[in-house]
């Protein structure tokens, strides 16, 4: 693995701001961000774009991503100036990370501060019920990230008094220290075509934030 070029004192951190709700502008002063490959729509100043194989997580990360089906093609953007990112007119949401961990599907991750570590983690049944596979991407450290959603995401806080239940198709990401459990409402009625329509749900408990989008991906559970 390559050591970061700038020394540990990363004084200049790229600043993320939204321009409208579908374009992300990142102001950089010699620092770098990791972004979804091909998501740059414009830039101003001096920028260098470099494809990072396997998500820029080194050989081990690359192999893990290949195996887990969480491949993401990522590029590193570095330079001075402003770079604008957008992807298929998806709504973009900014996430602030202060040492906590963000769990997001790789396809919903648009851009992260280069100082954030990305990785993969096992999601268990939730991933299966979403049709996204059993693994998800994690982003960890201090900095900003931008995630995408179909329609503006609603950010819901989970605390110990207020657990939250989410439809797997509307879930996009979560951060903080939350436990998730899988709820199934499948009963004999489901098989008689009289199901509640919300046969699979994910329950979040603990302390953190959950991002949901106002749209449901087609899931196995969607029609049950």
């Amino acid at each position, binding site marked *: 693995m390559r050591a970061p070029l700038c020394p540990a004192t990363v004084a200049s951190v790229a600043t993320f701001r939204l321009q409208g709700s579908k374009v992300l502008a990142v102001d950089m002063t010699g620092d770098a961000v990791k972004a979804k490959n091909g998501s740059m729509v414009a830039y101003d100043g001096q920028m260098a774009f470099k494809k990072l194989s396997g998500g820029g997580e080194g050989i081990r990360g690359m192999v893990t991503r290949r195996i887990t089906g969480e491949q993401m093609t990522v590029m590193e953007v570095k330079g001075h100036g402003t770079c604008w990112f957008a992807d298929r007119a998806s709504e973009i*949401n*900014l*996430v*602030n990370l*202060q040492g*906590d961990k963000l769990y997001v599907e790789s396809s919903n991750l648009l851009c992260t501060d280069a100082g954030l570590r990305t990785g993969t983690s096992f999601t268990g049944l939730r991933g299966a019920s979403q049709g996204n596979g059993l693994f998800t991407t994690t982003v960890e450290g201090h900095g900003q990230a931008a995630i995408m959603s*179909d*329609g*503006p*995401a*609603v*950010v*819901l*806080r989970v*605390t110990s008094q*207020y*657990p*939250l*239940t*989410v*439809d797997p*198709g*509307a879930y996009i990401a979560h*951060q*903080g220290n939350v436990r998730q459990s899988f709820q199934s*409402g499948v009963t004999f*009625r489901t098989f*008689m*075509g*009289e*199901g*509640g*329509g*919300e046969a699979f749900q994910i329950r979040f408990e603990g*302390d953190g*934030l*959950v991002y*949901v*989008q*106002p*749209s*449901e991906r087609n899931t196995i559970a*969607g*029609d049950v």
Partner: protein
Amino acid sequence: MSAYGAPGPVIHDPMTLPSDDNVNAYTFCVELKGSQWFLQKGKMIAYYGSIDFNGIGHGRLDRLVRTSFHSPLHASDWVVAEGQGKMLLADRAFDVNSYDLEDGNLTIRSGNLLAFQPSLSLKQSIVPGFLTLIGTGKFVAASNGPVVFMEPPIRVDPQALVGWADCPSPCHHYDHEYMTGVMGGLRAMTGIGGTSGEEHQFEFVGAGTVLLQSTETLMADQATGAVPHEAGVPGGHGVSGHQGQHGPQAGVPRFPGQLGDLQRRFGL
């Protein structure tokens, strides 16, 4: 908890979520206090508290269904949410809005209706593909783009129509002048020059409100269920001779410039 810094998006919790109001243009929050709501399957995206979702066919809900649900043939598309908590509804990132009816009636395209309070009763409209809500209460509907409210008399594009309230007379309107004029006739016959696509409208007169969406892209229809096979029932395909062979539903492909059966009626 303030660790998640300020510049990010608005963070909601059960205290800050609105009660029976929009969270943003695309998400609606319903507060349940032991009460019930009807909602279309799969439109719940998240909830706080303890809420049960049961199919309409659930035995315990029979009474509720008897009193406020009169559209039995597509009952399985609807579920009843009941319990305590706040529930978020959304539909494919379409705009959602809530509407209050006070001892009124409103007819809406079936695919647009998301949820309603049981104090309203749901019925199939005589107009195929539409549902009618009667009574007092709140309902939530989706639309492709924001909804515009218009007062009759008005003629509207069929694709832009979301629904109407209190108007007694929705009917078809054809632009005779255009279709029978020399140029119009030529165009209609030959297809040369095409048609404007606006020769056919829905017309509303009388007192009431017409709801329009701001695009002509329809939302997918939800089945409203079949109507009884009886003569005189529109869409019922009863014994009546003309039934079932008119209208674009007949399955005959349309060509540009072809005005359908009207051409025949006008001798074109």
